[in-house]
């Protein structure tokens, strides 16, 4: 177990799967589900949330140092894993927050086991097929292309060079490759969405906040609107001049709106 000033980095066994979990802070549990690129590590927004909550930031099975069980082949499978994760760690009812592909996962969990959730936050979430625009190709392009699509203006991303644009070590490149393999497995077809998800979400009354970068070039803001329509108790907050990662690109506005929402639940 690696311990730093702010958080711990542990490997635990969940549902027979070796799972890497970053954990820090104290308070009610807040479970953060990362996107298709993998666990970003302990970021400034994790640290900010850790002031009020116990933050859990696992690497999904198949990502990072987590093992890849053969039975997890779809987002529904992954949601079942996290249902067991929440139960095993005794986190329910948990504040659940999902980013991009992790947002899709969070939505599936919300539909699967509403009583496990205290709140749901979806940040530029995959999972629904847009009616306007399309989800960008991520699996058949190089990571450099994806990086360019991610932000509206990299210049406004604090610590962009150290947090986002740094050269990966060979070991990190191996991890990135493995992450992309797992993303292919989960998101290939239908591409980054579940056509049945709107039906699954019907009647889910969990308090939900949907946050979206207005200029998201990866998942169109229209998906945020569709999520708001699908969820019974949801608010949509669109951040202008912001791309796919508002937590990095517009951290102050992101933390303010999400913090206020979580405090009310």
């Amino acid at each position: 177990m690696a311990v730093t000033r702010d958080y711990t980095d542990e490997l635990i066994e969940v549902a027979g799967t070796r799972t890497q979990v970053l954990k820090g802070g104290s308070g009610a549990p807040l479970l953060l589900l990362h996107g298709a690129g993998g666990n970003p590590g302990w970021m400034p927004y994790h640290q900010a949330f850790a002031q009020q909550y116990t933050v859990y930031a696992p690497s999904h099975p198949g990502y990072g140092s987590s093992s890849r069980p053969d039975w997890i082949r779809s987002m529904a499978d992954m949601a079942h894993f996290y249902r067991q994760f929440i139960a095993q760690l005794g986190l329910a009812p948990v504040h659940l927050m999902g980013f991009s592909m992790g947002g899709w996962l969070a939505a599936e969990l919300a539909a699967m086991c509403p009583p496990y959730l205290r709140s749901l936050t979806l940040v530029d979430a995959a999972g629904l097929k847009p009616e306007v625009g399309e989800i960008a190709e991520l699996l058949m392009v190089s990571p450099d292309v994806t990086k360019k699509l991610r932000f509206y203006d990299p210049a406004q991303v604090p610590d962009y060079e150290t947090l986002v644009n740094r050269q990966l070590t060979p070991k990190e490149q191996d991890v990135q490759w493995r992450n992309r393999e797992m993303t292919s497995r989960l998101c290939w077809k239908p591409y980054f969405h579940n056509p049945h998800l709107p039906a699954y979400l019907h009647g889910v009354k969990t308090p939900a906040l949907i946050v979206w970068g207005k200029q998201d070039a990866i998942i169109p803001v229209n998906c945020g609107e569709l999520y708001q329509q699908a969820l019974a108790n949801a608010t949509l907050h669109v951040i202008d001049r912001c791309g796919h990662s508002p937590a990095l690109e517009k951290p102050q506005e992101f933390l303010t709106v999400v913090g206020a929402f979580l405090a009310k639940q």
Partner: protein
Amino acid sequence: MAEEIAMLDCFSGGRIISGFVRGTAVESLHGGLDPSENFERFQEAHDLIIKCWTTPGPFRYEGKYYHYRAVNPWVLPVQKPYPDIWFPGTGSPESVVWAAQHQHPYMNLGALVDVTEHWKGVYIDTATQAGFAPGPEHFGYLLRALVADTDEKAIELGRLFMWTEAHRARGPHEHNDPPGDQSREVLKVKISRPTIGTGTVGRKMSYDELRAVNNIIVGSPDTVIKKLTEIIEHLNPGICTSMAMKGRCPIRTSCGPLSYSGEKLSQRCTRSSCNPTRK
């Protein structure tokens, strides 16, 4: 596919050799399939086809990728238990091991000689562990060989073998090697080695470099016979096939070399002795 190959075996009076090819990422993509499933799908398809050839129908098949409630082939191959299966590869270790474990002849598609030697050793070791002694029929090598009247003419024509040097297929190069199509370990091996003008990773070798190491063999009949003999005696393949022409070569230009390759070369090659089970 099982029925079509069986049909061909019937038409030919039991002379079909069935080549089972994994296919490339591009083919997975164009089939709408996740490339990371390529090898698993291939293995399951292999098992299902052999079952079609050997198990009376109707039967049910419920695998990971293929689900059929009623499989009932209407034609079976003449050859029993089923036609020979040849498995081609360029250098994926998983593929070589798989071929040996299933006792299928492994056809190396023109990798560099030292790489091919290595994979042949892997095949023999795996076969030994699997409990069978591979024979001459278990190892093959495909190479690019072109014959013309003179060395100079052949060298010039042989440049057409490099027609995929700049691109392996239409479309972005990410379509050729996406994550999951090959294992990370295989890709690292390929990145670390020079390529033979058909890959998208690793250092590309030039036409002249490939000729110098006999990966492309071009020349007059005497030159080609000499080089082919060197390769065959070095690698000891039980099956040696050549690709006599590639790329945009006018048919009239290709006829000469092909006729050389087809008739005169084979006559002069039979004098070579081979010991394919030697590493």
